[in-house]
């Protein structure tokens, strides 16, 4: 059993691919079909390019503050590939790659960070909860989603994400604990990207690993190389199987690195060194996955160059669409407060509309 | 003496059943020792004695029910007889009192009052009937009410001149001046126009005699003023050949007498009016100019103007559509008599839906009667006279002609409607058979 093999208390970290894309753990190499492998890679690339471009747009003043995912593509795409459409993704706020794989469109993703709630209106059948800003509260949501699945008797599984800093928050404790109490079909993935804004991982908790916290809740925990898409896939796959069998939740710690800033308003050079960043650049998740695919003759430089071109164009076009998208209307910002607007709220809306119309016509004079 | 009450022991219980007494009346109980065991929803509660003393009375016997707040035991602790009355099973209305165990119980629950009081049922899910407006008490501020009480005036008999018909202090003072006036028909306050009246020009001091007008006259003044200021009125006139009606009436005068009714033309005309109102409901309505709404009424209270020595009064026949011609005749007589005796009640003057005025009794023929606001029309009835008329054969014959003058509120009734109303009325009055049969 995977989780028995890798005890976080003993400092054992699960990995399948080394940083050069070579399989170093044959027993646990997951069998994924070619199409899926390529799709995983393409999604990781899309996330990477979209991220880089978004940062550029932001510096150009065309995009608002957002949270980059650079360096964390494998810890997000790997797990998503191990789930099915009926399963749920309950993200924090740095899961763009996971959301793209799961069925959110780039347009929606950009639209959200651009400042329009329509970006959270994912398509029918796409079970993603909206981006969650208050840290930790999403874990309780995930427990609820999983709890509902259990009561309904479906075998949906809820996958939720949190950062290393987030594990200090009370709601992480309450939510993971809740999952354990009821043996819920829930997989909590901690993206340990080493920093909570400027606070290093060592100051989030005295515990040596985050995965070992699972012991306190009576559930299995495993520390995984977060930059290894295959290892993340395999660990999640096991966890999902457990969950569907009614064996309860699992805690996975993905050890990765936040290559970019916390958000575009952050300057990481203040609190970390160039060397450290370069060290992690060597372990880049995309590079090693590319090499793995290349070794299996599924990908090559030519295809990669073409992909990059295609994605760059797609990203640019999408962003243009977002820029040209209509801003929320007066009705849109009011009408979703309740199912039906109460009388007084309707009056308040109309009063603002009247004022706006007056301003518009007044401007003609 | 200690009246030891059964407390809510913190589980949210409100009653229990006595399982076992460990003491009998007359025994000495020791503080802290279990005195009685009470069975509740959750637990079998062992209740310890609150103090040393002699058990004087048990609140309930084994197998009986005891409610939270009721006395469980009366213990004589030698402290005196202040609460020595019998401790009957009180209705458990009080919350647990001072000697209860709120300190040790300090149950997270606190002390929740229990009782068997029953609230009136709610009828929200049923349809609620509309209340008759005349049933409502007089609108008046408490200050006015107090004044009325102090001055010995029944506030319900006073016509209010304040907003919404409210009785103001001036109204009360005026009423208290001793005059038992019958109030005029409801004249709701116009929207402030009456206030802006031009000043009275100076009249000579010599050769004139001033006389204060009566309350009735004052109210007539107000009603006429209101009608004039609010309603742009116009009158449609016609002369109707009622030869057949006259014949009919003459034939049936005797029959009426046998039934103790006087068959004059008025009840017949009113009958025809009601039938016509039903077909032209705008004439049986009010125009609410504040809300810009026409208020159609499904009841027919026909006002009949009565001339009295003190002035004009217009009581109405309630639900006139439900009365026979004989009954209408009786009502007219009754109202006229009451009006002259000044014993008309306020309600008989209220809620008129359409009025008729029979100045024909004084010989007048055509006129321009004034609408009683908030009605939308009024029918002036002139004297029936013999006149030459042209019949169907183009011959000139002697006919009985009834002049009618219909004044309408031109804001909501146009000339066309007025004409049509008159035409229909004419048809009924032309032919009494049509009146009776349709």
């Amino acid at each position, binding site marked *: 059993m995977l989780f028995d093999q890798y005890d976080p208390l003993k400092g054992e970290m699960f990995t399948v691919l080394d940083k050069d894309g070579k399989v170093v753990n044959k027993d646990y190499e997951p069998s994924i079909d070619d199409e899926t492998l390529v799709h995983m890679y393409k999604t990781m690339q899309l996330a990477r390019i979209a991220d880089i471009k978004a940062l550029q747009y932001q510096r150009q003043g065309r995009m608002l503050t957002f949270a980059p995912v650079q360096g964390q593509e494998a810890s997000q795409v790997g797990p998503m590939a191990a789930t099915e459409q009926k399963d*749920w993704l*309950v993200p924090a706020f740095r899961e763009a790659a996971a959301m793209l794989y799961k069925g959110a469109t780039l347009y929606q993703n950009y639209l959200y960070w651009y400042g329009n*709630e*329509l970006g*959270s*209106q*994912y398509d029918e059948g796409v*079970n993603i909860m*909206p981006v969650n*800003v208050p840290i930790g*509260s999403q874990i*309780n*949501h995930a*427990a*609820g*989603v*999983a*709890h*509902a699945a*259990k009561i*309904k008797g479906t075998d949906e599984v*809820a996958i939720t994400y949190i950062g290393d800093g987030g594990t200090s928050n*009370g*709601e992480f404790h*309450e*939510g993971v*604990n*809740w999952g354990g*109490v009821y043996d819920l079909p829930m997989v909590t993935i901690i993206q340990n990207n080493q920093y909570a804004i400027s606070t290093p991982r060592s100051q989030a908790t005295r515990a040596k690993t985050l995965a070992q916290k699972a012991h306190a809740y009576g559930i299995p925990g495993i520390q995984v190389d977060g930059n290894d898409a295959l290892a993340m896939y395999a660990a999640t796959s096991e966890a999902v199987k457990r969950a569907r069998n009614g064996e309860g939740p699992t805690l996975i710690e993905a050890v990765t690195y936040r290559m970019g800033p916390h958000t575009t308003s952050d300057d990481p050079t203040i609190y970390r060194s160039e060397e450290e960043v370069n060290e992690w650049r060597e372990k880049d998740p995309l590079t090693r996955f590319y090499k793995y695919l290349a070794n299996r003759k599924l990908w090559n430089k030519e295809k990669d160059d073409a992909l990059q071109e295609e994605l760059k164009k797609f990203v640019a076009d999408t962003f243009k669409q977002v820029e040209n998208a209509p801003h929320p209307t007066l009705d*849109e910002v009011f009408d*979703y*407060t*309740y*199912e039906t607007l*109460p*009388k*007084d709220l309707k009056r308040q809306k109309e009063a603002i509309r009247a004022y706006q119309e007056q301003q518009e016509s007044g401007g003609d004079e | 003496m200690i009246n030891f009450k059964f407390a809510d022991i913190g589980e*949210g219980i409100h009653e229990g059943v006595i399982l076992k007494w460990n003491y009998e009346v007359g025994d000495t109980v020791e503080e802290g020792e279990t005195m009685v065991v009470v069975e509740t929803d959750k637990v079998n509660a062992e209740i310890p004695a609150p103090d040393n003393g002699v058990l004087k009375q048990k609140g309930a016997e084994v197998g009986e029910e005891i409610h939270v707040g009721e006395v469980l035991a009366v213990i004589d602790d030698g402290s005196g007889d202040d609460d020595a009355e019998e401790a009957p099973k009180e209705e458990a209305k009080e*919350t647990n009192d001072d000697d209860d165990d*709120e300190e040790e119980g300090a149950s*997270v*629950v*606190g*002390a*929740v*009052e229990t*009782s*068997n009081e029953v*609230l009136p*049922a*709610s009828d*929200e899910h049923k349809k609620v009937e509309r209340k008759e407006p005349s049933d*409502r008490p007089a609108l008046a*501020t*408490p*200050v006015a*009410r*107090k004044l009325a009480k102090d001055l010995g005036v029944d506030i319900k008999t006073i016509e209010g001149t304040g*907003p*919404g018909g409210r009785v103001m202090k001036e109204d009360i003072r005026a009423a208290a001046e001793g005059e038992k006036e019958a109030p005029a028909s409801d004249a709701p306050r116009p929207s402030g126009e009456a206030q802006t009246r031009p000043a009275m020009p100076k009249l000579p001091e010599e050769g004139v005699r001033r006389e204060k007008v009566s309350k009735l006259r004052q109210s007539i003044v107000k009603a006429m003023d209101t009608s004039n200021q609010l309603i742009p009125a116009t009158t449609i006139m016609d002369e109707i050949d009622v030869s057949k009606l006259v014949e009919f009436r003459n034939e049936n005068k005797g029959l009426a007498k046998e039934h103790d009714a006087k068959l004059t033309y008025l009840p017949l005309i009113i009958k025809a009016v009601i039938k016509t109102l039903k077909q032209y409901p705008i004439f049986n309505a009010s125009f609410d100019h504040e809300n810009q709404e026409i208020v159609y009424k499904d009841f027919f209270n026909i006002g009949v103007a009565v001339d009295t020595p003190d002035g004009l009064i217009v009581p109405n026949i309630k639900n006139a559509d439900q009365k026979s011609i004989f009954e209408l005749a009786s009502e007219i007589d009754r109202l006229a008599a009451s009006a002259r005796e000044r014993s008309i009640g306020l309600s008989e003057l209220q809620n008129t839906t359409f009025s008729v005025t029979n100045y024909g009794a004084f010989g007048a023929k055509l006129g321009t009667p004034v609408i009683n606001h908030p009605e939308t029309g009024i029918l002036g009835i002139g004297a029936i006279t013999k006149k030459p008329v042209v019949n169907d054969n183009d011959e000139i014959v002697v006919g009985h002609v009834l002049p009618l003058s219909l004044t309408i509120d031109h804001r909501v009734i146009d000339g066309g409607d007025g004409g049509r109303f008159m035409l229909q009325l004419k048809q009924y009055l032309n032919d009494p058979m049509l009146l009776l049969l349709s």
Partner: protein
Amino acid sequence: MATMTLLKAINNALDQQLKNDKSVVLYGEDAGFEGGVFRVTAGLQKTHGKDRVFDTPISEAGIIGTAIGMASNGMRPVTEIQFSGFMFPGFNQMAVHMARMRNRSRGKYNLPIVVRMPYGGGVRALEHHSESLETLFAHIPGLKLVIPSTPYDAKGLMTAAIKDNDPVIYFEPKKIYRAFKQEVPEEEYEVEIGKARTVQEGSDITVVSWGAMLHETMKAIKEIGDDISVELIDLRTIAPMDSDAVVESVKKTGRLLVVHEAVKTLGIGSELISRVNEGAFFHLEAQPTRLTSPDITVPLPKGERHHIVDAPRIKQEIEKVAYFE
């Protein structure tokens, strides 16, 4: 028809909805096996099973947070916070998520959640068991808040709250859980959320109250008798508030008194008075007034009498406003 207390009426509504709608679940601390510390949910676990009616860890954030997840995934959770004074650890989830999910996702997710909590004082309990915090909820767009004062309304509002597709906070005035009984229809029925109830019609003064304080107000009105014609309104829903009913009433009477047990500053009374100012200013004959608890922490039982608003005080205040010239 059956005669029942307010508490039993809530139980009845929950029982009926658990039966009629399998997506309804009910949970909270000690709410399952024991039926709640007040026994409001007694017998429900036995009838409907442990999967749907269950006890939770001491985790208010968990209770509300999981309700949000459950509601997003097809359930209609009815949760309990043991006392309104303890809702604060869960308030984060209520304010930042529960109130906003519909808006945040432009309608993709809506949360048909009910959060029940016993509230209000007059029960001589420990600290934190007597709070009256309706203002906090009313100030957050996206939440609804109802407070029944009779058994009939309790069942009707609970049924409506469960059927509502938006989150509804349901305050249970614990002081009157068992203080009286009333005939309650046995079949399913709703009391409209957002609609006040005219308890009695009158012409001299409009008095507005809700919860346990409504009954105290009724005692005061009984004392006053015929001298003042009081129009009494039970607000029933705090958000969305039926201020129109109050405004229309004041247009008739010209005078307003709001009575509530919550503290004065920024209590619901201040909102009602503002709305009456906006809608009925020209009909006013006296200053619209509120009678409330003072701006202090609810005292422990021995000091409660300084804090409480009771019938004699209410009577005095009604007279003051009614006779004002």
